[in-house]
């Protein structure tokens, strides 16, 4: 079923892209200046959620629902990355 892009939806999509890229830049600031390693790992989670939001906004803007597969893949792989980083953190500081 095709979604008709009305003016309301166009304004909402532009606003949502603006807010999401603003939060991506805030996360990038914390990623660059984070004092410790776990801060940077935590920001990776935020960046993954924001990119899922950007994919969904892009789907609503263009109507290409195929890109939901990318959201599924990101949701799976970020979990694995978080577990691996936690394991690495405990092993690195154990010495």
């Amino acid at each position, binding site marked *: *079923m095709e*979604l*008709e892009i*009305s003016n*309301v*939806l166009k*304004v*909402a*999509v532009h*606003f*949502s892209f603006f*807010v*999401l890229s*603003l*939060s*991506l830049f*805030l*996360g990038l*600031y*914390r990623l660059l200046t984070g*004092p*410790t390693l*776990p*801060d940077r*790992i*935590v*920001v990776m*989670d*935020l960046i993954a*959620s*924001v990119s*899922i*939001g950007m994919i*969904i*906004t892009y*789907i*609503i803007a263009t109507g290409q*629902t195929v890109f*939901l*597969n990318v*959201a*599924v893949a990101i*949701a*799976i792989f*970020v*979990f694995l990355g*978080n*577990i691996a*980083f*936690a*394991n690495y*953190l*405990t092993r*690195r*500081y154990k010495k």
Partner: protein
Amino acid sequence: MTDWIIAFFLIMGSLFMLVAAIGVVKFDDVYMRMHAITKAASLGALLMLVAVSIGYISFIVWVEAVMVIVFIILTTPIASQMISKASHKTKMPKGEGYVADELEEAEKNNP
């Protein structure tokens, strides 16, 4: 009418993600930052997936949206618990204003 509902869910989701990002910048501790991210960002992603599943009424889209929601709700608490346990075990610096830390007291009492 449908586009107003989709626009509402989209804007609410992106604003929740902005709240999470502001919390990451403003808080001064690993545990507080994790507290900000894991709740606000997953609620934002959930609201945006509700928006896309209202907009496109088809079986495949609904299955994939439910898959993403279930993955986020299942995996975010586990991952954040692992990372906070690791950073507590490696003695990361804590911010101001902590009232109690029961894990540290328990480790001090029975080493």
